């Protein structure tokens, strides 16, 4: 409210924009500052997290910085992070600090051998999942490389070395009072999403839909959540039969419902049509139930996220898509979004274009040829089409791709975000991720490869990152439609890899329950909700949230941009100067000051007129 708060905000957001990971605890930025002032390398240059323990420390390592050249300093490896800090040579220059959670590391390689001659040619190269590579040079003679390499391998890839992810150690060491405080303050991240409460918010159960715990033991579908919302007309036995006709038993289940029109978004996997074009009467009836549950429309739209060629090709593998002949009153659309392999390759090219250096004169062509923005456009266009169907035509939509856990999640989550302003708040967005991504079994473990050294695993893909990017694109087009800011999204993207929190661990809800993540790890949302200020967008909420809460972003490459704040943030010269919302905060606090002032005056005025029953005018005690 007052000036000091806004100043603190400013400071927080400033450090935050460079790297959300180390600003997450305020003490860490304080600690590093202290060290810089004294010019001494202290034993603990950063604030250790709970459960974080030193593994190795080397004082004679050179970090080969692509921007400032080689810098000499000390390298610390803990069970959570790699921390390098250069020895200050000149007083003015701030030290070079590299602070990387080990979870971010995709691959560690030795460079140079016994015969290497050139300077800094012997050492370690680290490839990160967050668009950067790090190179450290060691002196051959003192054999410091071997232990560093081994410690890195063991702690960055604990699952490949029969260890445990840091999230467990972190939570185990966390002081119980903190956890209790979180619960009592209402920001416990594990309690953010209550499936039944969220369904109630949407108006379920109602005349047409019911909630069921049929899958409570994950017996029908092991990648689906325990609680489903399904058409009332479908009995439990019937649902079991429908599941058999869908790839991996992922039958159509409710994602979102418009409480006003009852138009719904349901999600599923592809039908097991196969080359012969198999039909399944139950599946056909089930889709008609979904259609009939919406009285506003006598049609049902199926959005197949894939390019139609891919959908056809899937028939050979037993999958396929619903034929309009077999399914009555159904229309099928293909949204032309490519598969996880195409996306992985696209992001790899983005990294090539952004890191370590860029060629300004060829920048646009380089970004164009990554096709990343075109893929983003496709996802946005698909979501807008779903929004148009649900909102404008009041038609229910069924969304699927092949397995219904990658592109489907992108589309349902994004279209829900566009349709329902609740999901554009911090709490709502957390619910959205918990629901559409985590509970419906987006395979985070596989797609990210937490703690596992198979860096070229074909199952890895930036599907979730692409969703976060799409959300950012929408937030750029509708600057004041979101309660959270860019820093919030970057924080989520960072902790997607960090393994500090339990949120993005495991593949399915079933696995998470088996691992008891709720009790053995801390939720990312707990962390975010406990210091909400730095994640809030001062431009929200505004008068846009009046009668028309539906967003329709422009799906054109002309209107989407490369998210430099995320992909290019390691290049110190590449981040455009952050002007932030300084002026907005000033105006807001000025307004609040004045409101406060007026209120005091009015109170006085009221008291006086009550006491004296006269209308004496006040002298002017302003300012």
């Amino acid at each position: 409210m007052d000036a000091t708060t806004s100043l603190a905000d400013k400071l927080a957001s400033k450090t935050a924009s460079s790297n959300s990971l180390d600003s997450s605890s305020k003490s860490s930025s304080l600690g590093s500052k202290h060290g810089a002032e004294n010019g001494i390398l202290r034993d603990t240059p950063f604030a250790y997290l709970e459960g974080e323990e030193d593994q190795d420390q080397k004082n004679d390592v050179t970090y080969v910085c692509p921007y400032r050249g080689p810098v000499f300093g000390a390298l610390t490896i803990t069970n959570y992070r790699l921390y390098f800090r250069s020895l200050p040579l000149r007083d003015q220059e701030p030290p070079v600090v590299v602070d990387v959670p080990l979870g971010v590391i995709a691959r560690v390689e030795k460079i140079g051998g016994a015969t290497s001659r050139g300077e800094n040619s012997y050492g370690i190269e680290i490839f990160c999942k967050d668009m950067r590579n790090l190179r450290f040079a060691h002196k051959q003679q003192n054999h410091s490389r071997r232990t560093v390499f081994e410690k890195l391998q063991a702690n960055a890839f604990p699952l490949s070395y029969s260890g445990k992810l840091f999230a467990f150690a972190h939570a185990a060491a966390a002081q119980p009072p903190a956890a209790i405080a979180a619960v009592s303050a209402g920001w416990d991240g594990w309690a953010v999403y209550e499936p039944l409460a969220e369904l109630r918010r949407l108006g379920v159960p109602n005349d047409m839909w019911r909630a069921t715990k049929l899958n409570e033991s994950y017996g029908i579908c092991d990648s689906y959540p325990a609680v489903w919302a399904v058409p009332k007309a479908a009995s439990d036995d019937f649902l079991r039969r429908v599941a058999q006709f869908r790839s991996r038993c992922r039958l159509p289940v409710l994602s979102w419902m418009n409480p006003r029109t009852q138009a719904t978004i349901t999600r599923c996997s592809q039908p097991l049509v196969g080359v012969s074009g198999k039909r399944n009467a139950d599946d056909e009836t089930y889709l008609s139930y979904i259609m009939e549950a919406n009285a506003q429309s006598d049609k049902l739209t199926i959005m197949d996220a894939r390019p139609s060629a891919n959908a056809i090709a899937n028939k050979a593998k037993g999958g396929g898509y619903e034929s309009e002949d077999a399914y009555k009153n159904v229309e099928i659309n293909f949204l032309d979004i490519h598969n996880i392999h195409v996306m992985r390759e696209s992001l790899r090219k983005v990294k090539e274009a952004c890191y370590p250096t860029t060629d300004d004169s060829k920048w646009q062509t380089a970004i164009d040829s990554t096709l990343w923005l075109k893929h983003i456009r496709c996802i946005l266009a698909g979501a807008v089409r779903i929004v148009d169907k649900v909102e404008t035509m009041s038609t229910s939509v069924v969304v699927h791709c092949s397995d219904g856990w990658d592109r489907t999640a992108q589309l349902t989550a994004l279209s829900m975000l566009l349709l329902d302003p609740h999901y554009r708040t911090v709490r709502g967005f957390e619910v959205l991720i918990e629901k559409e991504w985590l509970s419906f079994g987006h395979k985070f473990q596989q797609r990210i490869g937490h703690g596992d050294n198979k860096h070229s695993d074909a199952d890895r893909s930036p599907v979730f990152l692409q969703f976060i990017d799409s959300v950012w694109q929408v937030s750029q087009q509708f600057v004041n439609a979101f309660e959270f800011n860019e820093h919030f999204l970057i924080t989520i993207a960072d902790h997607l890899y960090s393994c500090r929190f339990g949120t993005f661990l495991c593949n399915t809800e079933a696995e998470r329950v088996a691992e008891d993540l709720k009790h053995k790890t801390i939720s990312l949302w707990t962390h975010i909700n406990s210091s909400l200020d730095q994640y809030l967008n001062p431009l929200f909420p505004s008068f846009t949230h009046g009668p028309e809460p539906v967003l329709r972003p422009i799906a054109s490459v002309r209107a989407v941009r490369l998210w430099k704040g995320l992909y290019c943030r390691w290049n110190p010269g590449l981040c455009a100067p952050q002007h932030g919302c300084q002026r907005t905060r000033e105006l807001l606090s000025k307004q609040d000051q004045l409101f406060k002032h007026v209120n005091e005056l009015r109170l006085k005025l009221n008291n006086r007129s009550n006491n004296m029953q006269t209308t004496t005018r006040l002298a002017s005690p302003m300012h």
Partner: protein
Amino acid sequence: MATGSNDMPDHRKRNTFTSYVAPMAGDVRATADTNEWCLPSDLRDVHLAKPRLLAGEQIVASAPAYMYSPIAPMEGSSGSGNSSGSGTVTGIGNSNNGQSNNSNNSNGSNSMGRSRSSHKEATFGLLSVTNFKLAFVPLHGRATLSAPLASDLYQENAYLGRNEVTLNNIDQIYTIAEQGRAASALQAARMASTSSRRKKLEPAKQHNINGRIVALHIICKNFRLLKFAFQQQDSKLSGASDYGKLIASALARFAYPMRHDLSFAYAYREPYYSTLVGVSMYGSKNDWARELIRCGASEWQVISASAVPQLQNRLQAGKYQLPPHFVIPKCCEVERFLQLSFAFCDSRAAFWVYSYGSSAASLVRLAELQPASQQDTKMENIMLELVRKCDERKQLKLIQLTDQLPSIQDVQRAYQKLRRLCTPETPEKFMLQDDKYLGLLEKTNWLLYVSLCLRHASEAAATLRASITCVLQESNGRDLCCVISSLTQLLLDPHFRTIDGFQSLVQKEWVALEHPFQRRLGHVYVSTGEQAPDSEQSPVFLLYLDCVWQLLQQFPDEFEFSQTYLTTLWDACFMPIFDTFQFDSQAQRTRAVNEGRLVLRPVWDWGEQFSDKDKMFFSNPLYQRQRGDLVATQNHRRSLAVGGHKLLASAAGGGGVGPGAGAATGTASPSRYTINPQLFATQSSVPQDRYLQPAHRILDLSVWDQCYYRWLPVLDIRGGGQPQVDLFHRLLLSNIAKVQRCLELQNFEELPDAYYDALGEQRPSQQQQQQQEEPVEYVDGVERRRKSMPGTGAGTPGSSANGLNVVNGGPLQLSTLSSFFPFGNPIAGDAPHELYDILSNSSELLLDTSSILDKSSIV
């Protein structure tokens, strides 16, 4: 043929127009059945749909026509506007998928989208060419919506309607000839976009228009694409009438004038009474002298051509191309200077434009040596030596722009490529461009040139900051010199970032020092033998405006003006009524006044074109006026500001004491008409801690969407973009202004809604009854922004947070505001009144120079 009036039927002669060729109602009915598009049954109204004419304006040709939008429907209907707009986008995406995948399954929604938009694709009305503009007046039938209320919110020009463009603005005209047997005008027009029968109408050429013209594509210099289709008519009464040909030939003759005195500027003789205050026109010696004083440049002198005998001698004067006033080194005699200037292109030997810092390092513009004397650089060396002598530390840096910046031809090519990207004729073309968009954008080179300009301006600014005199040299010193020189001053001097300052800067660098606007903007088409007629045409000024826009993006609170102001400035280049951007030189302007009886009307008097409401969109709600910025000439504005500064004055104590600001400004900048010679010795009064250091790589830049894309409704983010942010800040300012007024008057009846909202209190409708109501949970109200999490109620998240939702009297329905606001399509809703309220209240605070809101008062 347009003027041949011998065989005009009687009913047409009734009109006062020189040549009016609207059809009789009967004419059309006879053929209506055979066409895909039936003309409205009330076609006789075409006679009534005449465009509004200015004094001296005459209609040259008129014809019924269909105006249609390239991609999304041009419609302003409420509600559905939003959905059909984006429906088209997705429709496009879909058709693209269809192509690549050959899928026939996706046709369902595709055809739906198309059918929804097709009936709104075009509007029927009367298309007229006058000696001033091309005007389309829609017939207000059932389908067309006039929506005067909604359009009230959009920029309205006093001289031009929404469907009108000045002839000056027209750059290229394509005629689409009849091909085969097109069943209808619409069909032909659709076919035409891909066919080879699309032909460019070349200016300054003999026009043999063969065949019937079914459609016209008109590309404007301000990135607008206008498309018209014409009904084919085989009338038994009047024979075949080719409306397309009629309009095309009228445009060919009037849109490409060969002489400037054919411009409408000379026909429009309405007197002009200046209300202009605060802009330095640099039309007098005093203006230059004042600038010298302001910058503390004591080593330089102003020369007026009228005081130099040589330049008054008729035989001699022709040899020089000097502006009426210019500033040269004090150490250089006028005769010596004239001698030297002879060696330089356009007589442009070192002109002073600006000085910076305590040592008054100067910014100097210089042309290159005449081609004849280029071997001998002696003259140049002498000139540079004279400039060096003016520098306190005798240091000088020469920046040769010719080698490092694009030529004017390069700029023109870049502009044309960029414009092609912004004016796709069909949805298919749009998608095709979209697929390779960034690559195509790079090939235009436009952003590269913007980047180069910013880089060199930064270099020049850094030179001046290092107290080194900087000389900008360019072939004639009148094109990119203007860009770099103006940008350098914008980077260094906050005064030029105010509206008045910016306008003064344009006057100084572009008008007074004679950027050849007439040739560069293509106001006159001269065919000089071999040369292409438009080789002199180049939007150098737009390049400058784009650079300024980039600065505005990087420093959103440093500029008093908004992007709307910059966009409007580009539009204003094509308003012949205003002389500012009409001439190549001052001499030409003087001649036009003397010989052509031209009425001079500076474009800076925005009230001539726009209402107060539209002028408010020119100001940037994020701008922070600083105490030091106060300039005496802004005194007139202070009368507008009611609340703030008085409050400050009384808060400062004493109440009756004359405003301290007035005294301060008295010394800072002298009043307009007198120069106190004692001030000549003073130091620079330019603050030296407020320079800007912009990022200038291509990847730091973006495309100026408001200016370039505003005519493409598909790219209009309804309820999004910058306008929403600006509105948010304006609402904040408006709230602050209202509360301040309440405090000042000690009357709390007109508190802003946000106040009650923050309190969680009902706005008292009857003051007496609500008096007893206790203002509750106030502290909580303030803290709510931090604490309150929007509940689980759908639809109204955070409705009370920040206290910015207008609760009583219904929420503001501004959600359909265009992202190109105040351009783009009209919006729906009844918000204008409330918007106007916000605008006027926030402007009050923005114009308030008492700096109640500057940084120091808040922190």
